[in-house]
């Protein structure tokens, strides 16, 4: 196979076995599982990385990747992640948070203890900012508690965008004019920059959901939003991610998945909680040793 779009007069030739080798490496490092059905997606991004590194063969590119020269692993991860999202996406879960989950969370809080909410993967930041905006707009007790919101993603380029906080019209398509006027300022030529107070309130960090040691730094969250990422993982990576998320939650903490995802088919570690606005999953308060 000749990969399209590569530098020089001749395209770099990559065999099927080499693509498999590349995918295996990517899987081992990130949990992202790409099968033959996504061949075009893989070929295109692999070609871009081979060209960008000036490699003249797959072998020379793979050597760069394995040695992580010039942060190539991070660059390839950035190239393979999907960052399509928007503000107030799947807002029924945000409604569930303010209608049900937070009532349960604050019941177990000591005075002065913060509420901790995690958005992983947070992509370019729309989700953690949405959580903050939703709380400001819809939770009457918002000023009575310290609320810590963390946004994490494996893609550092996406995190830079999140920190910068400038978005196009497409990201804001679900927001009312009133919300846009109150939380955003024009960012020429045609963007919208989120309010500095919100920008400075959310911590953005790099985290790999399937890396046990990486995730060990995140603990005691009350609510985790982990939406539309597990569908990209294979069975064992999903289980690793589920176990990592279990450890990141406080006992009794909640996890919100994407609308097409269900923890029941991934891991028995969590209890299903059915609320009027959403189905979420809860880390049991007590480990009885029996799932």
């Amino acid at each position, binding site marked *: 196979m000749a990969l399209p779009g590569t530098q020089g007069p001749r395209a770099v030739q990559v065999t099927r076995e080499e693509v498999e080798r590349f995918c295996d490496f990517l899987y*081992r490092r990130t949990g992202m599982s790409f099968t033959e059905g996504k061949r075009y997606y893989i070929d295109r991004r692999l070609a871009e990385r081979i060209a960008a590194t000036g490699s003249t063969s797959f072998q020379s590119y793979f050597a760069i990747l394995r040695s992580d020269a010039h942060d190539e692993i991070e660059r390839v991860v950035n190239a393979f992640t999907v960052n399509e999202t928007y503000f107030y996406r799947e807002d029924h879960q945000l409604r569930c948070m303010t209608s049900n989950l937070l009532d349960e969370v604050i019941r177990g809080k000591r005075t002065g203890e*913060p509420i901790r909410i995690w958005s992983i993967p947070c992509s370019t930041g729309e989700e953690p900012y949405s959580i*903050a905006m939703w*709380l*400001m707009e819809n939770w009457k007790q*918002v*000023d*009575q*508690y*310290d*609320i*810590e*919101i963390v946004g994490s993603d494996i893609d550092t380029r996406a995190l830079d965008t999140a920190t910068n906080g400038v978005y196009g019209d497409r990201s804001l398509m679900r927001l009312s004019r009133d919300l846009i006027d109150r939380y955003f300022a024009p960012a020429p030529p045609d963007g919208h920059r989120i309010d500095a*107070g*919100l920008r*400075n*309130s*959310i*911590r953005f*960090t*790099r*985290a*790999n959901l399937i*890396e*046990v*040691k*990486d995730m060990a*730094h995140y603990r005691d969250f009350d609510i985790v939003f982990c939406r539309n990422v597990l569908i990209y993982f*294979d*069975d*064992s*990576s999903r*289980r*690793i991610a589920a*176990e990592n998320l279990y*450890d990141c939650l406080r006992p009794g903490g909640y996890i919100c998945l994407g609308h097409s995802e269900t923890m029941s088919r991934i*891991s*028995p*570690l969590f209890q299903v909680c059915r609320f009027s606005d959403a189905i979420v999953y809860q880390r049991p308060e007590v*480990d009885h*040793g*029996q*799932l």
Partner: protein
Amino acid sequence: MPFVKRDTAIPSAAALSADEFAAHIAALGSRDPEARWRGARALAGRAEAVAPLAVALGVEANSRVREAIITALMRIGNAASVVALVPYLRSQDAGQRAAAIEALQALPREISPFLTALLADGDSDVRILATELARNLPAAEATRLLCGLLSVEAHPNVCAAAIDVLAEVGTDDAIPVLEQCGRRFASTPFLPFAAAKAIALISGEG
């Protein structure tokens, strides 16, 4: 604004040192289930941990920890981890059997060399579970293995399990074997019915 931000530095993940590895292996034998859970989780993907993980799986009573051990073996995903998991197909504990099936189904390439023997096992329960392991194999290979079983299998429940899998993943090559199986078990009405249903599904008529 009610939001607080803590700028705790988060160090990047590093590989396990030899001492850490030994500590996690030792933790598998701890009395504290939390320590065993952490040990198993830290060993996910470490090929040299297969043997101690397999030993731990055999004695682990806490189902949450057992889940973590199974995940660790799945993540290692080599022939040794398959060898460690296969014996649990014979377990008297339904939870252990289900966990082993789930883990082995996720390793179709690695379980494949073991399937011929498992489908010929002397225990019909193991043969039934082995048909489930064929479900995630490439269709042609699953068809070949299950047709080989169906053509000689005497136990109707094993045949029923194989037909169920073939109905989902079988190719046209399975049709004559299914027809023959239906005739062979004519006195067990369910099997000719199931075989006919599978043939219809494989032919696109179901």
